[in-house]
């Protein structure tokens, strides 16, 4: 099953998004990677790497971000893990996480899920 890492400047926000996805898509590999190690606001390269490593399978992982440095840091993680199937979603964070995890639970592939998520912005 495709996995998800929710990246936010805020630990609470990332965890909240994960919680919301569990309402409709329990059982999807998903991790929150929000805030810095000391709990303050920011994006942590190490947290994102750890989250990806925890849930990664050959089905791949979709990274979801809130804004700005979350996107840039996610891109650097993907560059460092170039042997892994990782894609950065470009869609609203909460709606995308909910839609994406529902798609994953139904068995869709990473490519199919990204296609679905790209429709959310329209």
């Amino acid at each position, binding site marked *: 099953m495709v996995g998800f890492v929710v990246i936010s400047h805020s630990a609470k926000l990332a965890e909240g998004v994960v919680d919301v996805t569990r309402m409709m898509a329990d059982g999807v590999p998903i991790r929150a990677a929000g805030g810095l190690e000391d709990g303050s*606001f*920011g*994006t942590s390269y190490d947290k994102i790497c750890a989250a990806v490593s925890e849930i990664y399978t050959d089905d791949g992982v979709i990274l979801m971000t809130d804004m*700005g*440095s979350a996107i840039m*840091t996610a*891109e*650097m993680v993907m560059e460092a893990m170039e042997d892994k199937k990782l894609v950065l979603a470009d869609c609203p964070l909460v709606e995308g996480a909910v839609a994406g995890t529902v798609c994953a639970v139904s068995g869709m592939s990473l490519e199919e899920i990204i296609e679905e998520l790209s429709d959310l912005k329209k």
Partner: protein
Amino acid sequence: MTDQSGLIGMLLAAGEEIEKQKLYLTELDNVTGDGDHGINMARGFDAVSKKLSTLEDKDIGTILKTVGMTLVSTVGGASGPLYGTAFMQAGKVLSGKNEIEMTDFLAAFDAAIEGVKMRGKSTVGEKTMLDAMVPARDAMVKAYGETGDVKAAFAAGIEAAEGGIEYTKTIIATKGRASYIGERSLGHTDPGAESFTFMLKAVSERL
């Protein structure tokens, strides 16, 4: 121009300057951003300073790449990926070198700028660190080409970077947090342009 230990001295000096300017940079960022640039950069360079003592026997490329990775992992804000990429790209150009000349420095500076542009999907005129970095690079290339004098080239670079900082006051931000406040960013300098210029000055004092 310098060798491994000279470079380490320059990086430590840059870090000390950032620590000194931490509150000033944070105040700047408070006005147009999320108020953490100085704190973030100081945290990043504190981690860099601790790492540097373990890198004395490494080549210059490795030193710079390690600085870059350390910044990405510790800064926490946008300047982490941006400066992180800058140092990593500079390090790639200087791979295997134990000494560098001015021409090496300028090539690495070029790569750093391209790295920031790629990472930030940005260019000059958007009120970012590039508005200090690019004029500095252009002035240094010109001055060094004309005089062959390293110190003169750095002086020209610093003057151009300071001009870049002043220029950022006159434009609206189209990148980063400040882009969300639109016209209210007018009249304020960009913190990234300022932190870059502080670092350039600190490095030039070690020449």
